[in-house]
């Protein structure tokens, strides 16, 4: 049943997926904590025209993608450092522009043809040594940065207004996070592509978030879940001949939906029965319906 994993190219894909899970498991939690999900989607999409350009001009795809992604990260970081919160409208703008430029470059300038699909949705079964080396570097950097800068990222995410008083409002630490996410997005491109990068980077972290309440278990759980989803997707795509990136995305999305459903079912159950909520499944609604939350309602604190 698992003879898929006898093939060297599948084994290589598996190594790539496991390495990316390490990076995604740690960075994914920071993406969720800092509200950067849309940014990560944007930075991956921004890499698309870079890939097309590199493909058309014949230089390293990774370099092309990372160049553009880095530019994007620096722009957003610059705006954030100047105190213009809400990267979202900028991200949306860049997202659309990047896809449009990428498509025009691909269809009208370089006539990239079939490559475009690969660039948009990845080609996990065709990863090469360079892809794996990049994944190793990204995973190592993600773990190292989480270990050293994690406390700062957490404190700023918890209470941005207090950050300066606490002496942690260093734009550098936040910029490192943005650049690392850009790097991870680029590393993920080869596996699941520009449009599905969030399937690895964000969805597993968002899934595990619903069942954990501290950073460390959340991060470990996310690494395990991303690895499991990647492995399952890889296997299933081999068996069904479906594209691996899309298969992983469908599995990740499906598990997210299941966990969300289970959680709201548990909420309904405990609310109708009036019993204490089981650990790890305490729902948000409990807060939102408290008299306290209601009296706060409407007063936008930001």
């Amino acid at each position, binding site marked *: 049943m698992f003879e898929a994993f006898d093939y060297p190219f599948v084994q290589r894909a598996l190594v790539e997926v496991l390495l990316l899970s390490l990076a995604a498991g740690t960075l994914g939690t920071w993406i969720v904590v800092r509200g950067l999900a849309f940014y990560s989607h944007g930075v991956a999409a921004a890499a698309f025209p870079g890939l097309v350009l590199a493909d058309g001009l014949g230089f390293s795809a990774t370099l092309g993608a990372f160049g553009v992604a880095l530019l994007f990260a620096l722009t957003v970081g610059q705006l954030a450092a100047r105190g213009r919160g809400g990267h979202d409208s900028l991200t949306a703008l860049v997202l659309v522009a990047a896809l449009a430029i990428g498509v025009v470059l691909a269809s009208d300038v370089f006539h990239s043809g079939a490559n475009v699909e690969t660039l948009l949705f990845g080609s996990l079964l065709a990863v090469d040594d360079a892809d794996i080396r990049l994944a190793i570097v990204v995973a190592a950097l993600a773990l190292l940065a989480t270990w*050293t800068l994690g*406390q700062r990222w957490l*404190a700023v995410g918890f*209470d941005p207004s*207090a950050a300066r008083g606490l002496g942690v409002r260093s734009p550098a630490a936040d910029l490192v996070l943005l650049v690392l996410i850009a790097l991870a997005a680029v590393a993920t491109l080869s596996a699941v592509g520009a449009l599905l990068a969030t399937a690895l980077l964000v969805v597993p972290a968002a899934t595990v978030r619903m069942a954990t309440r501290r950073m460390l278990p959340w991060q470990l759980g996310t690494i395990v879940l991303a690895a499991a989803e990647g492995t399952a997707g890889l296997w299933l795509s081999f068996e069904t001949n479906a594209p691996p990136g899309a298969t992983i995305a469908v599995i990740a999305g499906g598990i997210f939906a299941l966990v969300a459903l289970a959680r709201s079912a548990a909420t309904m159950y405990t609310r109708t029965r009036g019993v204490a909520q089981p650990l790890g499944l305490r729902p948000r609604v409990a807060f*939102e319906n408290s008299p306290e939350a209601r*009296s706060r309602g409407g*007063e936008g604190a930001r």
Partner: protein
Amino acid sequence: MSGLASAPLVRTDALAVGYGAAPVLSDVSFDLRAGERIGVLGPNGGGKTTLFRALLGELKPLGGALDLAARCGTVPQTERSRLDFPVSALDVALMGAIAGRPWWKHPGRAERRAAREALARVGLAELADRSFGELSGGQRQRVLVARALVQDARIVLLDEPFTGLDAVSIRRLEDLLDELAGEGRGVLIATHDVEQARAWDRVLCLNRRQVAFGPPAETLSLDVLAATYGGSIVTLPAVAGEGERLALLPPHHHDHEH
């Protein structure tokens, strides 16, 4: 800093602050001394949070002067996103110790002890490992005070810390603020409750600009309250044990739903 007992922790002069080119708050001239509690009064949108953001360094002054003798600790306005944050009370208190160590280091034993001691001081020793979002409103405010204690902030800003608290929690927090001032910290408290502010040392009335500043007894006149809250004021007849009381009839309000 000079050793003068009267040297203020905060001093502003004709301070103007805003989010764009136009200030949303202007003409702010006040000072905060060590050991003093100042109540910051004003309607919704009056500029209380904006003033705090300027003191915290988030907003640069658009005009006037702002001098701070120390970095501020803060108990921010309650925000829903924080309730869902994956941290314990101890984690939050430990955030106050970050500046004290090199950026690559994790909190050590001494820092953990300091954080637990701060939680004990605010009466939360047993709840140190509880999730922040699971605590009651009053307990959460005290965790944030503990963070300021770990940080050893000489200036503490509290933005509407009493909103949504029951009477017992309000008393506890008020006592805690008295203690903070008692040990020489300067405390600024934004509040909606004029009567509460009468117990503090001075009041700062804001309504898009500074309306008045001074000791409550002299400052909180009918005219000042009317200018601060933009409503009309009626005098309630004296009730048993208390003298006459003022009540404010707010103008028809838009942004409040309860």
